[in-house]
């Protein structure tokens, strides 16, 4: 076997290895242009429709005292024990003004507004603005809340 054949095999193998890297780079590139932000909530945004929205969702208490209580998902919702809270929870472990739920162009966002026991989304205590949708379970005090379409 001539040295030339060995050289060709050697270069071909190295070329294929680098081709693998190039293909991966291509996949990553198309991955970037294909990936839509997955954090976008599926909820329609009532504010954008103008007038009375057709299908407003609800914020429902699914566990804890007052289970079954609900408020329509409109504008800004203050969750807490205060009488003027939008969702008035009868929960000894909730602060008076516990959390704020509001919507932006992409969906609903929850924010803890200085509560004592914290606001949890899917069991994780939130420390910043957190996007929520109908798949997430929000815990405030000993109550669990859910968005419903």
């Amino acid at each position: 076997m001539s040295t030339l054949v060995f050289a060709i095999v050697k270069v071909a193998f190295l070329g294929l290895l680098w081709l693998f890297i190039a293909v991966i780079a291509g996949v990553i590139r198309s991955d970037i242009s294909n990936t839509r932000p997955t954090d976008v909530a599926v909820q329609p945004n009532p504010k954008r429709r103008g007038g009375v929205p057709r299908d407003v969702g609800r914020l429902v208490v699914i566990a804890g005292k007052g289970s079954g209580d609900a408020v329509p998902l409109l504008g800004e919702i203050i969750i807490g024990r205060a009488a003027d809270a939008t969702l008035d929870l009868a929960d000894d472990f909730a602060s008076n003004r516990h959390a704020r739920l509001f919507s932006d162009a992409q969906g609903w966002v929850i924010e803890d507004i200085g509560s004592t026991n914290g606001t949890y989304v899917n069991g994780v205590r939130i420390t910043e603005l957190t996007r929520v949708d109908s798949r997430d379970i929000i815990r405030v005090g000993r109550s669990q809340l859910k968005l419903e379409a």
Partner: protein
Amino acid sequence: MSFGVLRKTPINQRSPTRRNTELVLVLFAAALGIACYLVFYFNRGLELPSVWPVAVGCWVALCLASHLLVRKMLPYADPVLLPCVLLLNGLGLATLNRLNYGAAINPAVLQLIYTAVGVVVFGVLLRLLRDYRVLQRYTYLLFVIGLGLLLMPLLPVIGKESGGSRIWIEVFGRSFQPAELAKIVLTLAFASYLSDHRELLRSAGRRFLGITWPRVRDLGPIAMIWVVSLVVLVFQSDLGTSLLFFGLFVVMLYVATDQVAWPIVGFVGFSGAAFLAYLFVGKVRIRVESWLIPFSDVDQNYQVIEGQFGLAWGGLTGRGIGMGRPTRVPLVDSDFISAAFGEELGMVGLFVIIMVYLLIVMRGLRAALGARDWFGKLLAAGLSFALALQVFAIIGGVTRLLPLTGLTTPFLSQGGSSLLANWLILAILLLISHQGRAPIEERDAEVVVDLADENTVLLPAVRQSVASEVSDEEVG
């Protein structure tokens, strides 16, 4: 399917899963491993061994099995991670086969079996851990398991010393390095602890020298575990792994608190400790000498010198597979396998290996960015960084950029514990990337938890009037 073409997807269409892309890449990676295996026999002018179709068949089956596991359980996972790992694993198997050609029992066979075990464990973990977030609850249990694993080699009967380090256990004639598994378990524990105490570590405490120093009660538990694990590793004289743990902890603290001062403090502390180790620990002094002045003592630094000659002999494009003499280097199967690649594939080939590691680390950090929870973020960032540091330390050591530390080269080196642990790391990274990339309606929702044992504080009611009204009603 076309690579690199921007597809215009309507907004309500399902997110692409990229599983077919992954399949193509997996087959490509598998083929490169097979090519590496066969070219050796061609270059040497040798007869192919009679078992070659079996070996190739097993390998392809393993590649497809791992792909199918991902396709079935994590449809939205990153499409690049698995093919990269399979390329490394395949090249590692082929090179082990080549390095031990003529041996009665080729370690490559054993490594293929370990790969199969790795794929099985990978699948089991994906099955059991659909939602990795459940692990977040067991912070202290994970700490205890991690430390237990680290201490196992010091146990009298099963512990085993080899090559001056007491880091192995031997059960039923099989040796295992529990530190590899401890690395993962402690990363989980750190991620869980830090994601819970992130905000406190960042803000509660006094400022001094430009850092908000956390309070002892916030940092204390984790710092203690970390110091204990470092002491254990130093006691076992496993310097490479202690370096890895140190770097891992510092980086996770940095990611959690967002304070640049932590890596600086870590680096200064590490430099101080390294200097003291150089002064007082004989083994470290030898390692530094063989790094800076290897030719002063040929007998002592034989391994490093032979590795250097191998890399030099390989040059830019290498000798060709099977045409070099990498077996002159002691421990070329494990610590020095990158020297074998450098000799036979040259710098061009060794750079492919390093690029593939880089891609794995990059996609791991991408998974960390995409994760919606801090536990996942810290976990993916920690595991990716540990992989990067490990590759940097060992390939840096072999190429004499750094003093040599006895670490394995992930997925390439011979050794079951390392291979198994790295497949577990791959599984965790894929789990996190799947959770981050899946559209919301296909994510796993958290189950409703029982609130009875939650750590909550009873708040006094402010609405006294309302409360008294209620009690009046009850009385009335």
